[in-house]
């Protein structure tokens, strides 16, 4: 019985800006359902409850590289990497392989076994095993372009909830209801039956579910079940070695490290318990699985775990991805050892029409169009302004079909709206001050589903990114839009474009793809103008300055570059910044910059925003040195005027607003700040377990 916070559009005075403070974007992330880490590529694949898939690059500051939108009814239960290929299996009974270059499913195969609960690949990468509701473990051969059904193992009575291959590829351990079955993978026969105890007391009448299972190379089987136990079994003899009761609720996930010396178990309480294979004596004999650490980083059930070489990655019903580095693998008190939490997407879901004062919010299943409120008064810095007219929701547009919305855009004049899913593209014309909407039906056939959309500043053209890092340019016209051309990057670019930025004078278009390649096109000639030298970290936001035509690019490792498009070289300020280096506190920030914009009143300003702050970089002021205080706005205010000039530097950071989803500057020089407080999200999460605490 929780109420969603009502729309609030407070206007406050902040320094020289009037700020629209917006909290009515009801963004609600989806629970994490499954994850899989690929050691080879250092990528983590994550599946959410709405069917969306996300790829994180663990070697690039945990940047959320790719997002594949969800699909109604996909209900992913398990993920599996086979080399560079990603497979998922879900309750819809299908195995899906994904095309990570075009951010869509490549194909689906129906397993014909009912809902699929688990998927696992053998260490050779040749066979894929899925556990189904009807009690069969189905084997699929992994071929070059597809998978092919090979055979069923012995059918069991009861669903197969979890499975694990033995590293040799000869045995499979399957967790079911009340028992574990060991299969011979070659003959398909079930050889052993390990009976799992039910819980005590009230749980005695309920079947115990073996949620997760792991088969180690020394033939030890580790299982976790709904009675709160982690059990160690001898897989050769089929006997129980030890039981660890770690929680009163379910143990939903298990993950074993590559070297099999450590394993982690995730519970419904939100704790992650680590076990390590240690010996009690100094010599290396009589090693045993010993419970070592307990991490409590989640408020709700932990449903997915991944054990990398240096960290434990967990995710669950509280929708946050947590990376906990293990302190015996990384150096203490460094940036590497800090815990990382990813709560919001690393891309913008808000589009601001600067001329019209209209905001577009992107949800997975619909779009919302809001007009900002108005205020006449003037006030003191930090004070609230009287609101003359409140914000109003103009349009709510539901998507058509079962695919979720991939990207959307609003033209700066507020007259055009476009969105794309993996299968369709739609363009709408907004009239009467963005109140009435009508679909543009005649679209050029070259305009296919896009990964990223962008309107030109004069609202005359639409840019849609397509496969192989190319961009389709379309002239906006009623009733029919004309195809103008396709901007192609050099041959060999296969990764999708995730950033598009058009210059204000309509001459340049910059694109960035997940291979860290930044291309700039000349729109008058519709040809490639230049390619920015590749920097090792992925760009997270970029923009082209309206007057100087300098391209500002910010990367996942928090580096900032400024590139002159006219001279085709880095600017002098950028080189100075690189030489001095960014402040250490700036580099230690753990959320990427998602928005770059400029101040029409002051050409030396660059405004950047991440989840916890926005910063006005003043190029005319000196750069902060390592010994300076970075977050000095508060202290500067308390100093007398002449001293302020001495101590101020070019990075003016404001942390008054959190969690920021968008910061934008309107044409009337007022700042739009879209916040989504984490408490509003937590209050709408499903029920957590009831913990009885002393004195409550």
């Amino acid at each position: 019985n929780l109420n969603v916070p009502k729309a609030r559009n407070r206007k406050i005075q902040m320094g020289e800006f009037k700020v629209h403070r917006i909290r009515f974007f009801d963004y609600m992330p989806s629970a994490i359902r499954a994850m899989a880490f690929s050691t080879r590529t250092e990528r983590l694949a994550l599946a959410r409850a709405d069917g969306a898939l996300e790829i994180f690059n663990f070697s690039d500051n945990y940047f959320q590289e790719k997002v594949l939108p969800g699909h109604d009814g996909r209900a992913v239960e398990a993920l599996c990497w086979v080399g560079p290929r990603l497979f998922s299996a879900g309750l819809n009974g299908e195995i899906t392989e994904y095309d990570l270059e075009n951010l869509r499913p490549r194909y689906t195969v129906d397993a014909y076994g009912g809902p699929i609960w688990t998927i696992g690949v053998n260490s050779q990468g040749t066979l894929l095993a899925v556990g189904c509701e009807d009690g069969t473990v189905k084997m699929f051969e992994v071929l070059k372009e597809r998978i092919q059904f090979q055979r069923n193992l012995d059918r069991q009575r009861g669903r197969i909830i979890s499975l694990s291959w033995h590293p040799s590829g000869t045995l499979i351990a399957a967790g079911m209801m009340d028992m574990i079955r060991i299969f011979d993978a070659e003959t398909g026969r079930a050889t052993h039956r390990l009976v799992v105890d039910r819980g005590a007391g009230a749980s005695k009448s309920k079947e115990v579910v073996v949620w997760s299972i792991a088969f180690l190379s020394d033939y030890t089987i580790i299982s976790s079940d709904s009675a709160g136990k982690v059990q160690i079994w001898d897989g050769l003899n089929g006997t129980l070695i030890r039981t660890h009761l770690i929680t009163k609720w379910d143990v939903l996930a298990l993950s074993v490290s590559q070297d099999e010396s450590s394993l982690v178990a995730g519970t419904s309480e939100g704790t992650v318990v680590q076990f390590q294979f240690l010996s009690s004596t100094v010599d290396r004999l009589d090693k045993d699985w010993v419970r070592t650490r307990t991490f409590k980083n989640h408020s709700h059930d932990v449903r997915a775990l991944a054990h990398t070489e240096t960290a434990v990655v967990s995710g669950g019903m509280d929708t946050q991805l947590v990376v906990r580095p293990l302190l015996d693998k990384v150096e203490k008190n460094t940036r590497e050892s800090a815990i990382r939490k990813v709560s919001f997407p690393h891309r913008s879901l808000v589009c601001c029409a600067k001329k019209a004062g209209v905001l577009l919010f992107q949800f997975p299943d619909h779009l919302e169009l809001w007009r900002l409120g108005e205020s006449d008064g003037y006030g003191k810095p930090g004070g609230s302004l009287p609101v003359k007219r409140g914000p109003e929701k103009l349009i709510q547009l539901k998507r058509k079909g079962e695919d979720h919305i991939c990207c959307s855009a609003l033209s700066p004049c507020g007259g055009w709206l476009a969105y794309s899913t993996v299968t369709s593209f739609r363009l709408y014309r907004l009239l009467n001050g963005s109140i009435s909407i009508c679909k543009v039906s005649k679209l050029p056939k070259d305009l296919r589903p896009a990964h990223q959309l962008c309107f030109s500043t004069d609202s005359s053209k639409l840019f849609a990114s397509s496969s192989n890092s190319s961009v389709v340019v379309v002239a906006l016209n009623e009733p029919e839009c004309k195809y103008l051309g396709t901007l192609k990057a050099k041959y060999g670019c296969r990764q999708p474009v995730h950033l598009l930025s058009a210059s204000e004078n309509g001459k340049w278009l910059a694109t960035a793809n997940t291979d860290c390649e930044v291309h700039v096109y000349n729109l008058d000639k519709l040809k490639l103008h230049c390619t920015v030298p590749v920097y090792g970290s992925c760009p997270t936001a970029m923009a082209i300055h309206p007057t100087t035509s300098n391209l500002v690019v910010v990367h996942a490792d928090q580096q900032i570059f400024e590139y002159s498009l006219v001279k085709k070289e880095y600017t002098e300020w950028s080189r100075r910044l690189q030489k001095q280096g960014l402040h250490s506190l700036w580099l230690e920030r753990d959320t990427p910059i998602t928005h770059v914009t400029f101040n029409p009143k002051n050409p030396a300003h660059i405004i950047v925003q991440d989840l916890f702050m926005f910063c006005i970089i003043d190029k005319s002021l000196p750069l902060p040195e390592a010994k300076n205080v970075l977050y000095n706005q508060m202290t500067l205010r308390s100093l007398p005027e002449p001293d302020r000039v001495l101590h101020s530097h070019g990075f003016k950071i404001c942390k008054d607003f959190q969690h920021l989803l968008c910061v934008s500057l309107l044409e009337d020089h007022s700042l739009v700040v879209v916040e989504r407080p984490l408490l509003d999200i937590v209050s709408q999460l499903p029920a957590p377990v009831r913990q009885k605490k002393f004195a409550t």
Partner: protein
Amino acid sequence: MQGGGRVRSRSLSVTMRRSAMTLQNNMAKNQRGEAAPSSRMTGRERQMGGFSLLLESSDDEGPEEVTFEDSKADARRSMKRALDTARREKELLKEKRRKRQELFQEQKKRKLLSAEVLEEIDSTKQEQSHVKAAEEEAEPEEVEGRKRNWKQNAARNLKGNYTVTTVKQSTLASSQLKAAEDFLHSRMYGPGSRRTTSNEMLSLENKMGKNKSAAVQFVKKNWACQKKAKAEKLKKTWIHMQQIPSS
């Protein structure tokens, strides 16, 4: 409890009687599978009668010698009698059943409609099944066709309540998906899962945290608005009630 099944007596004669009876019963059982209680009763009674006569004469005398042929004939006779009675009873039951069935059928006939209406219903039923089969690949026009069909037949007033609805296309996969999701939901949030609300969890955090504060519904303005409105209303009515006696 069937009569004649149990005779309780503590004398020696009973055991003799019993043993003889069991012998008879066993033989009878072998012959027919299950002994009908009444036949057993008659058999026993006879036996009892016979033995008691003998015993009444003297307790000291030894048992009389009965020839094999005699006893064989005796046994055969009694068996025949038992079989006859069993057969008679079966026939009686059959008759009863037949009579009852006829009675029911007559009652049914009285209840049912006349034969003509039955014919009409039969024919429309066949039409319906044809249309339904075609409707499996439902298209809006066909659905309307069915509705039109019904409108034509609506003139007939059939007994009973019924509603006409179109069947929603739900495939096997989606129903299995729903069932699997329900299983997951019941295991995690169903009975016995010992869960609480987000409100309680956050309020506990407020209470135990470094900067202690009140429960969340009092800290956040727009939490539990309905409850707060209800509380306000109650407060107002209570105050009003207090004021009435005093005025």
